[in-house]
């Protein structure tokens, strides 16, 4: 028994040890955001001699964070909605139709799971279409990158729903759209939650696509804005930290509330994709 106890103690100690490298940077960011310019420049882990809450008000005004937050919200929510609805429609076709055509299209979608986007021709295409730099362009782009993964996930889920359900509905006189929207779609909530979380996290944290595609600063999302803020205030680490805390805050809150689902979804997206 005592041997087991020692083992448990060692494992617990190892876990504490391994979480220190994760806690220190977070602690440093939060504490650093209340320091004065001089104290933050010292780059130590000490507590601030005086807690400066005004760093936050400075950052909110100077850093354009509210605007960026709203941009991120707009882009993320629109993208997630379109992606989830369109992917479910496609998945319904893939899961139920066993024709060659369906299999062919399915493999075309699979390609998008692995292959990276070719950015330069995409930019040119957006320019030709006259939508380069708009919210629409970035939303469509996120759709194109996340539809394959979500369609793939949802297809797997629909395959587990018995076909007899559809058949009964058809006999009762449902047309194809009501079969989907009234019978299948309401049953998809677990997989839609998963797909939404994966897409939301991906879109919310994306840096490379907004960097290439959103060339007007008023449309910037949070990661771009914070990076730009660092460019202007790179010596005021206290303000940079306050900016980082505010940028991390929405995700942190989301994580604290539903971490179980977030972890589960991100893993499912990885494993099944």
């Amino acid at each position, binding site marked *: 028994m005592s041997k087991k106890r020692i083992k*448990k103690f060692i*494992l*617990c100690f190892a*876990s504490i040890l*391994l*979480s220190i490298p*994760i*806690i220190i940077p977070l602690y*440093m960011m939060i504490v650093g955001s209340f320091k004065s310019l001089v104290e933050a420049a010292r*780059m*130590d*882990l000490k507590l601030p001699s005086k807690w400066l809450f005004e760093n936050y008000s400075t950052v909110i005004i100077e850093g354009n964070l509210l605007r960026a937050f709203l941009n991120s919200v707009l882009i993320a929510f629109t993208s997630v909605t379109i992606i989830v*609805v*369109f992917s479910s429609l*496609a998945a*319904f*076709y893939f899961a139920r*139709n066993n024709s060659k*055509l369906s299999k062919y*299209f399915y493999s075309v*979608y699979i*390609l998008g799971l*692995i*292959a*990276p*986007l*070719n*950015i*330069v*021709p*995409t930019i040119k*295409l957006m320019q030709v279409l006259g939508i380069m730099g708009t919210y629409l362009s970035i939303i*469509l782009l996120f*759709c194109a990158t996340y*539809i394959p993964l979500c369609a793939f996930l949802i297809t797997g889920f629909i395959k587990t729903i018995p076909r007899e359900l*559809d058949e009964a509905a058809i006999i009762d006189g449902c*047309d*194809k759209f009501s079969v*989907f929207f009234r019978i299948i779609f309401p049953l998809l909530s677990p997989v839609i939650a998963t797909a939404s979380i994966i897409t939301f996290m991906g879109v*919310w*944290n*994306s*840096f*490379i696509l907004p960097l290439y595609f959103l060339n007007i600063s008023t449309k910037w999302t949070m*990661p771009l804005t*914070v*990076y730009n803020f*660092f460019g202007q205030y790179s010596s005021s*680490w206290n303000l940079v930290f306050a900016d*980082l805390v505010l*940028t*991390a805050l929405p995700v942190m809150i*989301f*994580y604290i509330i539903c*971490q179980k689902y*977030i*972890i589960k979804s991100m*893993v499912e997206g*990885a*494993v099944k994709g």
Partner: protein
Amino acid sequence: MEGKINSVYSPIFLLPSFTIYLLFFLVPTVIGFFFSFTDWNIHLDKISFIGLENFVSIFTKRVIRLAIKNSLQFAIITTIGKNVLGLVLALLVNSAIKGRNFFRSIFFFPAVLNYIIIGLLFTYILHPNGVLNSLLSQFGFGNVGISWIADRKYVMYSVSAVEIWQWSGFHMAIYLAGLQSIPSSLIESAQLDGANAFQQFSRITFPLIMPSFNVSLVIALISGFKVFDLIYVLTDGGPGYASEVINTQIYRTFGEGRWGYATAMNLLLFIFITTISLTLLLFLRKKEVEH
């Protein structure tokens, strides 16, 4: 009736998503394929076909060869690091220790933060006067004063370490899903047969989590090759070109207006990633066992 049922599953359901996917993924990919054989750039009004010139230049230019080498090195180091650490963390939080749910959330947390937050935090930590060096000197390593990301000797290892730091918890969660699917009766019977901890792991646990291992490996490799954000924020390819990777080169070439060239590099990355991940998946699938 049969016909009526089949007509319900009409390709019309594919239309909305396929239109977007076609227009903003497939079409650019195909256009990109053609443009990578041209001299398409900002200074010329006319685009002309130049054959393989872009590709020849990619493989002969020193900077790009360095970028390819760095990408490979980054992908391999981070894949090993994330998987080893991920597996260790998974075994830890899968054991019956107190507060394992708490540790699980802590370990996973960096995976939900964006690269800008992480990049900037580590810019501060890895600074010559930064937190890492001061901790090292407090633990008796003397005054190290290493500039982890501004010294070409260390820079690739430092950025790899940050990437591993961020994603190990995510890989832990993948392994954990695999570990939790192992029936406890298997482990118990092995214990009864007198297997020690190492034997239990190598003969039972590991073969059974092979599927998780494969997925985790492929994901780590792909994201390693695709790396951009972290390097862009931490080093911007510097010092000099010491930490240039394929995607930072693409961004730079794009910025210079050499579009055909950037597209050619993107095409190479596309071929690279697709081939490696498909071969690996096929090869690894064969090695999985059933229970």
